[in-house]
């Protein structure tokens, strides 16, 4: 039982990091990124490619970060002339294009068969490897949270929120919108890619299935439930969503329900919970703190 619990918390930590990344973009800066999974993909494929070509594992994060910075800059530049909603659609298509590349660039990415056999983190520490991974993930989640908190409380963070609320006013006050957007996208992309590297070495498999669009919407659901533009909230949202998903099979066993219940229940949970929150509590469990403290 405890092994399963450790697993669910570990994966929740990874999703927590992803939720923080999305929150920086969508929550604080108003950048409706529907292609977050591509940034995550930079991480998983960074780790995967390094393994595939027999390079040292330590190069994985480095490659992931390079890919992530490029992806962040590309998405930020792409959006300069588009309004937010059109930009959101563009990000969705970029993510799909990335997935199709991963499926078809067989000599490079291993194609649909993916890359398997990535080294599992701390596998030498058995039977404590699960706990060691959890500790690492929790520390990285903590660091990501600190970075995000400091960022949104700084002057730069004020600029981010101003862009979200009143882009014209921000421009009139002399904020360089393009620069702020690019910076946010790069930081968020790097955070998502870190989650990707951790995930790749946790699952020990990298494949195009990891980059499917519904995964982005799962992260959106976490952000909406937890409370958009609240860093603590989105982490709580990630944990709540992961636990709900992971515990559905137990409900099935307990009530001896048919096995297809699990799939239906998960779909209803992610869809229903988003709808419920949007209608009844759009601010999420932990609403944004307006006028909070700022460090200058």
């Amino acid at each position: 039982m405890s092994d399963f619990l450790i697993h669910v918390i570990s994966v929740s930590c990874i999703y927590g990091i992803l939720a923080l990344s999305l929150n920086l973009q969508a929550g604080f800066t108003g950048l409706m990124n529907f292609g977050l999974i591509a940034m995550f993909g930079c991480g998983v494929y960074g780790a995967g490619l390094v393994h595939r070509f027999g390079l040292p594992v330590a190069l994985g994060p480095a490659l992931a970060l390079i890919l992530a910075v490029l992806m962040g800059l590309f998405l930020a530049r792409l959006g300069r002339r588009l309004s937010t909603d059109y930009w959101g659609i563009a990000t969705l298509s970029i993510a799909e294009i990335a997935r199709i590349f991963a499926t078809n660039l067989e000599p490079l990415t291993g194609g649909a068969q993916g890359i398997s056999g990535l080294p599992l983190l701390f596998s030498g520490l058995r039977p404590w490897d699960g706990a060691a991974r959890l500790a690492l993930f929790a520390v990285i989640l903590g660091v990501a949270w600190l970075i995000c908190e400091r960022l949104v409380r700084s002057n730069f963070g004020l600029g981010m929120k101003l862009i979200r609320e009143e882009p014209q006013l921000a421009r009139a006050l002399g904020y360089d919108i393009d620069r702020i957007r690019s910076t946010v996208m790069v930081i968020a992309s790097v955070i998502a890619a870190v989650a990707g590297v951790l995930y790749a070495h946790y699952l020990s498999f990298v494949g195009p299935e990891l980059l499917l669009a519904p995964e982005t919407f799962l992260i959106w659901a976490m952000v909406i439930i937890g409370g958009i533009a609240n860093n603590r909230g989105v982490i709580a949202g990630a944990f709540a969503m992961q636990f709900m998903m992971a515990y559905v099979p137990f409900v099935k066993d307990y009530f001896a329900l048919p096995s297809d219940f699990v799939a239906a229940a998960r779909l209803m949970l992610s869809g229903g919970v988003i709808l419920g929150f949007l209608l009844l509590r759009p601010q999420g469990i932990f609403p944004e703190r307006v006028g909070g403290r700022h460090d200058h």
Partner: protein
Amino acid sequence: MKKMIRVLAATSVLATALPAQADVVIGAVLPLSGVNANGGEDQRRGIELAVAQINEAGGVLGEPLKVIYEDSGNVPQRAIDAARKLVSVDGVALVIGEYSSGITIPLGQYLVAEGVPHLNPASTSGLVRGIGATSFSMVGLDNVSTEFAAKDVLDRGWKRVAVLAMNNAFGQGVANEFGAHFAQLGGEVTTTIMYTSGQTTYRRELQQAESTEPDAYVFTAYGADGGLMMQEAYELGLQEDPWYSILITMHNADTPAEFKTGLIGMDVDYTADDTSYKAAYEEAYGQSFQSAWSGYAHDTTLFAAETIERAGSTDRPAVLSAIAELGAEGFTGVTGEIKLDADGQRMWQPYQKLKVEGDALVSHE
């Protein structure tokens, strides 16, 4: 936050309060939702029939055999979630799974890392071989099936063929392996077209294949894709040349008779000598086989039960050595003899050459 912790604690308690297990329990991770849900359901049927058969004959170790099914949703992470639950909470003796290679591989690697026996009932990608020591395949991998197909195609005198396969782990494996075997035997693949499954038309792909002027078209396709592809090939006049389908049962039921006149192909032979399984399936589900995979899932379950019986307990190391022993000796199920090589992969399995007659498939030697 406090409230949420309480809710989580309550669900944890609920989960640990599961009824005590007197039965012999094994786990199955199958795609019961998502794009492969039909295949997964067919696998589940095969397992159910095997369980009924085993329990009718007195169960395993004197106890009834129980299978806990978990849905993978066709997502690797969900499959591993499910396996973790089966292993660490339900304490299953072994895990059967999954359907597509892209999920079977990470699932198997997780099980290998935990030292849990893994039986692969369906995935045929060559990469399955590398999963690890405690993973075993109850199905011949692509290298076996495509070699059979390549030989069959060449024997019919078609030296230049165009290959069409769906762009996933299975399709890429088939296309690569078929091409390698075909070239080795002296044939030439004029073009290999990887199409995306689920399209509303395949005219572009078909015309691209036609432009290379092959002697014949070799393809593999899932249900609705195959039906549409055959219809469009007919409409484009491409059926003047022969068509050869690898694993023809996957789409035969979805292809109307008028669009598949003269179609030939091959598939795994799941009714080798014994028709009792076919009869049991038809009686239980009121229809003929939906795919070739129920038979494999069925045999995998029989194989699992037999190894636990031999091991004398559900103790994992004992079960593992019993699998190795039975695999070396050979075990006969409805899909023929299951004999494993040094890597724990099925060495050989019977295939059948099939041709379409009206709407039905008949043996064609």
